[in-house]
């Protein structure tokens, strides 16, 4: 799964209170492609940008379990069910790696989860769309995870060490996600006319949200320049989007499906596909939580958190009791 910068407020430049020689040394290290580690000095704006981006990324992994979890009990075969379970479990793990990376920046997991539940923190807009048919599980793996990989591969070299290491692990695990999704879509596309129509319908609904996942266009992405300079981001939204379109269109053609974009055509001169205009009003509406199932998603997270509270508390109480028992035994012993 994946995140993009969804805040419209540009990151502020160095706070005046920050010693210029520290800022300069930091900028030089980053420009030299060195990794920044948790205890190293870093500008407050760098820290804040990372916390926002990594926590957003973590929330996307966790919320991303919901649309797919929806289909575990209805997977068409035991094989598909086992695969989907493994994939959803991976997404939970990815959320955990990312929360851990963000925690090294001085925030707690509980604080991040609270920010998600109160709507203060964002997650990828893609999960505010519903999964209506089994073909959607194919489309999510193929397109959504495909877009995620495109974004995450360069993040393995992001300047913040813990984030980069989390991305290495995530990328290693994520490639099966895309392949299993493509396999589902390919099988449906080669099936009965009804199955093929189902695959096409899923592609129709997921194509545009998937290419929106790369975030607003570069000329309307105020944080991109700073993030690229700090090596938090290694490629811009539009560069990544273009790459994704270029590799995905031939995959669709190979299995006899049509990308739902009448303006899509190969541009010999550029060596890339030209694609149609993206509906950014829809994107910003979904960011603001107006997606078809946005309320349902956040409610599901809050319910899970609240219903699990007694388990967390009981486990803590048990641990405290065991610890004090051991202490007593040691004192008497």
């Amino acid at each position, binding site marked *: 799964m994946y995140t993009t910068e969804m805040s419209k407020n540009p990151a502020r430049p160095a706070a005046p209170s920050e010693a210029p020689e520290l800022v300069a040394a930091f900028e030089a290290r980053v420009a030299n492609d060195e990794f920044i580690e948790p205890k190293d000095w870093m500008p407050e704006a760098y820290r804040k940008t990372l916390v926002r981006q990594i926590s957003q990324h973590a929330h996307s992994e966790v919320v991303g379990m919901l649309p797919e979890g929806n289909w575990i009990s209805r997977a068409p075969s035991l094989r598909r069910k086992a695969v989907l379970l493994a994939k959803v479990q991976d997404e939970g793990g990815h959320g955990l*790696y990312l929360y851990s990376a963000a925690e090294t920046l*001085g925030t707690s997991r509980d604080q991040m989860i609270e920010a998600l539940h109160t709507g203060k923190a964002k997650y990828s807009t893609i999960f505010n769309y519903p999964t209506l048919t089994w073909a959607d599980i194919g489309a999510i793996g193929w397109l959504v995870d495909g877009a995620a990989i495109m974004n995450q591969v360069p993040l393995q070299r992001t300047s913040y060490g813990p984030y980069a290491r989390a991305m290495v692990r995530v990328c290693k695990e994520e490639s099966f996600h895309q392949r299993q999704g493509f396999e589902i879509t390919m099988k449906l596309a080669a099936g009965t006319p009804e199955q093929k129509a189902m695959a096409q319908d899923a592609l129709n609904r997921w194509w545009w949200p998937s290419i929106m996942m790369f975030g607003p266009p570069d000329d309307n992405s105020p944080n991109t320049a700073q993030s690229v300079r700090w090596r938090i981001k290694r490629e811009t939204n539009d560069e990544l989007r273009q790459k994704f379109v270029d590799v995905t269109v031939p995959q669709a053609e190979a299995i006899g499906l049509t990308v739902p974009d009448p303006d899509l055509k190969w541009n010999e001169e550029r060596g890339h596909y030209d694609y149609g205009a993206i509906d950014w009003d829809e994107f910003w509406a979904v960011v603001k939580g107006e997606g078809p199932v946005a309320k349902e998603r956040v409610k599901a997270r809050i319910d899970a958190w609240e219903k699990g509270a007694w388990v967390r508390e009981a486990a803590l109480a048990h*641990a405290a009791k065991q610890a004090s028992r051991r202490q007593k035994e040691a004192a008497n012993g």
Partner: protein
Amino acid sequence: MANEPNTQTANEWPLWEVFIRAKHGLSHRHAGSVHAPDGEIALRHARDTYTRRMEGVSIWVIRSSDVVASDPGSAGPTFEPAESKVYRHPTFYVVPDYIKHI
């Protein structure tokens, strides 16, 4: 890695660092972190999180707050003294080619 400053809220499970031995004969290496109320549950979470693809044959967990780390601010004085001691490496010593097995 170890979390500083400590931002753990009152009811949050503490953080543990996870070390995995990939196979027998290798040492344990840091794999990541988990939250857990005690060591036993930390081990379970570490297993579910970090060994889903046969990445390990043994796991260690240790409370993050128990990790004592060197200070990056004093990395210079800590590590630079070794830089000038090239005589600690075998290549520092010149031995003629006709001397074998050394």
